């Protein structure tokens, strides 16, 4: 892990080997993103803008990449020509459900419209993570995200990189990550595939989170057959920052340098976002294998330390994590946010495999990378910090002016002097398609709701009661979770005030004053299946109560909305109801949704999972020494303590 400043300083770089399909290791007919490079074959150069102009009628595999015919037409309109292979891949990634929120956008607006008056929020929806001010000097940022499909294909790496991804979101806001939580859903506890998925997922979360030095302060383990072919692996992280260290993703400042920081780029995870997360997960998982991302928590730890050092030294003008959509997303979002243009030399990106094509470099989801915008005079200091921590840092581009007349600039990407991308970045990042998909209440809902619990037989003898009780305490959803929680470090950093088996985790944030936060994540897919509106509210209420009983004052909400296919009107109805319920609930409780994540296409064949909104609530404790643990303390005197039941 040496830095590579010479690449940054040098304009002359030995050209990497030509793209070579057979070296990609996937064999046979290229699929997914490799297919886009087919155009380049036989020409010795990648598909360039120039070539796209001269060969307008070349057929392009847009459908294979998940783009609808009309979406492809819109791309041609935006560009005034057919897209290049690299551009096509970028649009397919950025316009995928996962990145564009094209089916959920119209519903999620409610979170903004119904937001209560609140002065604590420093950054909200649309940022990498919401930021909440907790004192004059300090703020916290937190968010929950899904990594469901990758965790089914490869449980260990899928879950591990889920933790890695959410931690980078937190880091990108300027915060030091200080804890993680992991709401999990699996199929039946006694199903053979659960024996594959659950231990792998738990080991992955443990392996990555423990190695990063982040205490795990809570989560959920829920079993239900509806998750058999589609487990839910959600990961939450929280970080702390001094208010003035808040970072932004804007690539502002013409002439500023674009620096790629962290691990080298490899072929792992190519197309993972659009291929894995934005399609129904039905056919052989084997086909998706090349999309597996492999995490390196050690590299992420170094990345965290180097970024924090860079922030504190004031060396960062803008920053964005590389998440699901890799460089494609980071480049377009940073440029679009500032309205500037950007010029990128793709051959400067440090590669693990020299034969990667420009499209592959842009689409790679290699983990543990961040994109920095740095002023030219700070570049050397940035490279030196990276070298100190042993991470790669490479200048790969620069910020360019907006167009004449105040129009946003263009993102121009070359690869060994071939112009492979020339697009308005906003068209990728902000102006993707938006759908108001049809909604229809599920046909079986009336029957489901009519089937009351009151119709179940009740235990009527002491023996039956005993038997029922034993069955309940032994039930996988109610039993002791320490097989899972013991694999997680809850002590590291020395600020964990409450963790398992408490209903909420409590962290000390400020050792001087005792200021701290409480966090709980909850969800109940069965309630939400019966009534998604009330189910979402219930999840919110449960997390809210769990936070309140520690003595904390709830301040903010994050959510991960796990649903089936948005193309199914019944699922879309569940989704719209759940969002409405969560937004109404937050309005009533007077706390804002500061961020979250939507995960669609969680289904096996035609069968969707139960709609599963998972809600995280953050509360503030002025002094964590006054937290209320859930166990009864040993009574101080012989009379014992009095118990009260509140509420009705």
């Amino acid at each position, binding site marked *: 892990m040496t830095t590579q400043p010479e690449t940054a300083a040098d304009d002359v770089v030995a050209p990497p080997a030509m793209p070579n399909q057979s070296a990609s290791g996937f064999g046979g007919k290229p699929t997914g993103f490799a297919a886009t490079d087919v155009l380049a074959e036989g020409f010795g150069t990648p598909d360039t803008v120039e070539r796209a102009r001269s060969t307008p009628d070349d057929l392009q595999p847009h459908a294979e990449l998940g783009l609808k015919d009309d979406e492809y037409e819109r791309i041609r309109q935006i560009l005034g020509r057919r897209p290049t292979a690299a551009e096509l891949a970028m649009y397919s990634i950025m316009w995928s459900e996962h990145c564009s929120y094209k089916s959920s956008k119209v519903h999620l607006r409610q979170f903004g419209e119904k937001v209560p008056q609140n002065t604590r929020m420093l950054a909200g929806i649309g940022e990498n993570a919401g930021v909440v001010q907790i004192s004059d000097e300090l703020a916290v940022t937190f968010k929950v995200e899904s990594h469901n499909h990758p965790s089914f294909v490869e449980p260990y790496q899928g879950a591990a990189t889920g933790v890695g991804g959410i931690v980078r979101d937190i880091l990108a806001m300027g915060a030091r990550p200080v804890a993680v939580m992991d709401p999990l859903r699996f199929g039946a506890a006694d199903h053979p595939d659960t024996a594959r998925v659950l231990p792998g997922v738990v*080991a992955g979360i*443990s*392996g990555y989170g*423990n*190695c*990063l*030095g982040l205490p795990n302060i809570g989560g959920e383990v829920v079993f239900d057959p509806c998750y058999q072919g589609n487990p839910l692996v959600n990961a939450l992280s929280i970080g702390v920052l001094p208010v003035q260290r808040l970072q932004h993703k804007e690539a502002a400042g013409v002439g500023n340098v674009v620096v790629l920081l962290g691990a080298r780029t490899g072929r792992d995870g190519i197309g993972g976002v659009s291929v894995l997360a934005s399609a129904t997960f039905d056919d052989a998982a084997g086909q998706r294998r090349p999309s597996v991302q492999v995490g*390196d*928590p*050690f*590299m992420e*730890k*170094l990345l965290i330390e180097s970024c924090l050092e860079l922030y504190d030294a004031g060396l960062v003008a803008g920053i964005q994590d590389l998440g699901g959509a890799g460089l494609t997303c980071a480049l377009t979002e940073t440029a679009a946010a500032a309205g500037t243009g950007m010029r990128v030399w793709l051959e400067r990106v440090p590669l693990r495999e020299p034969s990667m094509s420009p499209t592959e470099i842009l689409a790679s989801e290699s983990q543990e990378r961040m994109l920095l915008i740095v002023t030219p005079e700070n570049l050397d200091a940035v490279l030196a910090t990276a070298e100190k*921590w*042993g991470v790669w840092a490479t200048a790969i581009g620069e910020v360019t002016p907006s167009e004449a007349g105040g129009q946003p600039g263009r993102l121009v990407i070359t690869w060994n002097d071939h112009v492979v991308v020339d697009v308005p970045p906003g068209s990728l990042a902000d102006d993707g398609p938006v759908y108001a998909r049809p909604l229809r209440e599920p046909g079986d809902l009336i029957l489901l709701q009519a089937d009351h619990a009151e119709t179940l037989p009740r235990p009527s003898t002491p023996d039956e009661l005993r038997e029922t009780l034993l069955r309940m305490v032994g039930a996988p959803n109610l039993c002791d979770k*320490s097989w899972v*929680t*013991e*694999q*997680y*470090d*809850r*002590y*590291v*950093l*020395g*600020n*964990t*005030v409450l963790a398992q088996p408490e209903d909420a985790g409590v962290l*000390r944030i400020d*050792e001087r004053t005792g200021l701290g936060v409480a966090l709980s994540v909850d969800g109940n897919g069965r309630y939400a299946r019966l009534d998604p509106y009330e189910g979402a509210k219930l999840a919110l209420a449960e997390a809210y109560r769990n936070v309140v009983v520690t003595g904390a004052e709830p301040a903010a909400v994050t959510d991960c909305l796990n649903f089936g296919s948005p193309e199914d009107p019944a699922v879309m109805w569940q989704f719209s109801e759940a969002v409405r319920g969560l937004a109404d609930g937050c309005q009533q409780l007077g706390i804002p949704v500061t961020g979250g994540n939507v995960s669609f296409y969680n289904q096996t064949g035609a069968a969707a999972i139960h709609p599963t909104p998972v809600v995280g609530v953050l509360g503030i404790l002025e002094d*964590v*020494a006054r937290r209320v643990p859930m166990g009864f303390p040993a009574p101080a005197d012989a009379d014992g303590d009095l118990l009260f039941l509140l509420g009705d």
Partner: protein
Amino acid sequence: MTMRIGVVTFPGSLDDGDAARAVRLAGAEAVRLWHGDADLHGVDAVVLPGGFSYGDALRCGAIARFAPVMETVADAARGGLPVLGICNGFQILCEAHLLPGALTRNQHLHFRNRDQHLRIGSTSTAWTGQFTADQEILIPVKNGEGCFVADARTLDELAAEGRVVARYVRGNPNGSQRDIAAITNEAGNVVGIMPHPEHAVEALTGPSLDGLGFFASVLHTLAGAPASSR
């Protein structure tokens, strides 16, 4: 005079901040030492903290052993400087051959974090003088590779020479041979312990305050009551 205790940070160290906090709570000054800097900056003792130095690649502690700071630490340790290796620090001390034996994958193959009872086996080391013989303490254990192994002769020697500093009681969390949780070198200045005393120094965040004993002990040792004289 305030004692100065160095806490080394390797790439991948995680409990370095906690170790420094424990040092401060015990009344000493914590001096942060960097793996790439061979200078110990005149500290009176050194703590090698827990974590995953170099990502635990190959074997835990295998690469950290070659860090520039470790050469100095090893020389100083042979010269009598008190050194405490906690968890990953213990692994590094074994890899550096400053302590015998090795730490291997937990027998049950899982990372395990729980509050663990230990019995102090030796109070004549630089780090345990403030405990009483056979005292039972409660501190967190958390590791994936904490199973202590050594050949029978070494194990017998450790027992015969009173160099088993602590044993697991009420359950062995990782399959360690003879329930060994902590050992010392012949001189008693170098101690390696798998559980985490630095996580049991505050009532608010730990299962007990028992961990403070290790840090209080070394201050007492340094203040002029050499371990060997008790």
